[in-house]
């Protein structure tokens, strides 16, 4: 099939120490679907004035990451870490300044209008707030049908049938099609937004904080739905969340971002059992009451401004392990099979966990 079969033959997936969620059998192959290479995105800050120094927000700085077909990649980080920007860059909702992004081998940045439209059928995104993602004056059915109509798929009648089918897929009764968003609960609207994202039959779904605005009892319902859909449709998911419990449950691999850079990447089990970056450790401790109780989860200070990020390691000013050498940019280096970390002191950090 492909001429350059130089890639490594993927070995058996090692047994996970905790059985949280059964792996989907057909997705063992590690075929890259989305490849991000050395991508940077800076946003100019308005103001600064005449003669003022032009300032930029370092939203994403030299980020490389691969999303494998069929996996759930969890992306965690705090406000300003760039995790949402990364998702928008992949879908080309914003354009990267430099670097390369490919979807199934196709260059996303170089795509022309027609190619981009075709690409967007395969890549969809859902956002945190379903109320603002839906037009309040459109009935639910119209909202779900709109992407199909825009892409000229089917006739009116077949699209209506598709809407009913999509509503069923997300666990809603077909009668929801005639309701307005104001007549639905938050959890129901979330299902509607997911149905709309699925309408074009995407292969890749980016979920930007999909459960953050939901009550606990509904959050679990939506997470179960996303997992069911992934298994049924063979979707690849990028799951963005600041909630470590959500990421822990749903992800196969986890990437941790801090101020525009990826600081750690590994399998879900590795990241939670043996986090190596001091920031990852703080983040995990903060979400685990038994560790937070001992003060592990409390990070000194606030995240620094992404306008003037610290030189070298961006976490160094808040890091208990920082030394002089941290003023140099740490390499993002392998720390074990499938586990990489951007910290020169990861071995000491590992010992302290």
């Amino acid at each position, binding site marked *: 099939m492909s001429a350059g079969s130089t890639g490594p033959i993927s070995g058996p997936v090692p047994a996970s120490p905790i059985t949280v969620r059964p792996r989907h059998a057909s997705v063992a192959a590690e075929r890259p679907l989305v490849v991000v290479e050395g991508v940077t995105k800076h946003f100019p800050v308005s103001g600064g004035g005449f003669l003022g120094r032009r300032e930029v927000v370092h939203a994403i700085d030299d980020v490389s990451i691969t999303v494998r077909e069929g996996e759930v990649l969890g992306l965690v980080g705090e406000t300003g870490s760039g995790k949402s920007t990364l998702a928008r860059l992949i879908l080309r909702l914003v354009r990267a300044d430099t670097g390369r992004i490919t979807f199934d081998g196709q260059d996303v940045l170089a795509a022309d209008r027609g190619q981009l439209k075709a690409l967007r059928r395969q890549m969809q995104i859902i956002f945190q707030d379903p109320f603002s993602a839906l037009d309040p004056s459109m009935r639910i059915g119209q909202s779900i049908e709109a992407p199909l109509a825009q892409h000229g798929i089917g006739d009116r009648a077949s699209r209506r049938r598709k809407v009913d089918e999509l509503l069923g897929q997300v666990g809603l009764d077909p009668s929801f099609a005639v309701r307005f968003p104001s007549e639905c609960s938050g959890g129901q609207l979330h299902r509607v937004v997911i149905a709309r994202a699925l309408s074009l039959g995407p292969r890749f779904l980016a979920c930007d904080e999909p459960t953050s605005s939901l009550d606990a009892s*509904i959050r679990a319902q939506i997470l179960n739905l996303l*997992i069911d859909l992934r298994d049924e449709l063979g979707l690849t998911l990028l799951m963005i969340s600041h909630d470590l419990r959500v990421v822990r449950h749903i992800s196969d691999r986890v990437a941790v971002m801090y101020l525009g850079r990826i600081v750690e990447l590994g399998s879900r089990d590795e990241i939670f059992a043996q986090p190596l970056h001091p920031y990852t450790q*703080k983040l995990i401790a903060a979400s685990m009451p038994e560790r937070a109780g001992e003060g592990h989860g*409390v990070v000194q200070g*606030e995240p620094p401004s992404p306008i003037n990020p610290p030189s070298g390691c961006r976490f160094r000013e808040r890091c208990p392990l920082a030394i002089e050498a941290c003023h140099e940019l740490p390499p993002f280096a392998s720390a074990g099979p499938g586990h990489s970390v951007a910290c020169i002191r990861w071995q000491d950090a590992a010992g302290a966990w």
Partner: protein
Amino acid sequence: MIAPAPEPVATGLPLIEIRNLRVQLPTRDGIVSAIDGIDLTIGRGEIVALVGESGSGKSMTALSIARLLPPAARVVSGEVLLDGVDLARLSDAEMDRVRGSRISMLFQQPKATLDPTSRVGEQVGETLRFQRHVPRREAWDRSVALLSDVGIPEAGRRARAYAHQLSGGMAQRVMTAAAISGGPELLIADEPTTALDVTVQAQILRLLTTMVRDHGLSMLLITHDLGIVATVADRVVVMYAGKIVEDGPTDQLINRPTHPYTEALMRSSLLIPNDDGRLYAIPGGTPRPGEAIAGCRFRARCPYPDMLGIADRCEAIEPGLHACDAEGHNCRCWAVEAGLIQVRQATPGHHG
């Protein structure tokens, strides 16, 4: 400066006493009971957590105490007593003096709560200037001291900042300083850390607890996050669809949740999967506002009525809030009252 913290167990007159409070709101679906007859007391020096989902009435309860209900809301019955005085009987001017100097509030969106046009130091000093009649210069100095107390570095410089120059965590520290500036007896914190990043949440919770304990305040902490409750509160009150369904001392309630709703809420909050890898989720949703419910409000989502063969009773008659033990643990459930389900030992999966 640090006064010894009073014992968390209330002695004598409680600071706040809510009796049979009912609040109605007009909505598109008709008149809705946002709060449907609750009784709640907050002792001096006590931290009470009020837990519930959207629409449970927890925020309305907070607003009722501060008499800040939306204009359309109507208190149908009941009273809110502060030190034995019915707040409804105070004039607007008297109530203004209560707010800030006796009761103050902290909200979820600190940056939206701050005035964008005035320096934060001015805002922190407002209660002092307008209620305690402290001169402007002195109020400013005390603001700076308060900002320093709540952990803001270089408080003198930061006091001159405007809201947009602060991060969410810093803004919530500023709001905390403003809330305690008038020396209140009760701090009502409505989801104070929900909008903040996880690492900052831990800082703010620690700050709030320290401030409340050091100054001997009482706190009503409103949250949907049971993780917060476990580390902070003395007592927990769980609301569902406008009613209190369970309340008790924190470790009792966290380790032995008794009402089927509390138990289900805790299981679904922890996001710990079942054996088949699926997360436990409470089926269905909360009753629609205005929906007429005869019996237990949780009945439609509860497995026990059918399992125990008591569906008729659960559907027909609303259970009362009754004591589960001698330690102040109360529960509103027919199955528990009849001894059909026991006060549980630790929740499954609670220890991961």
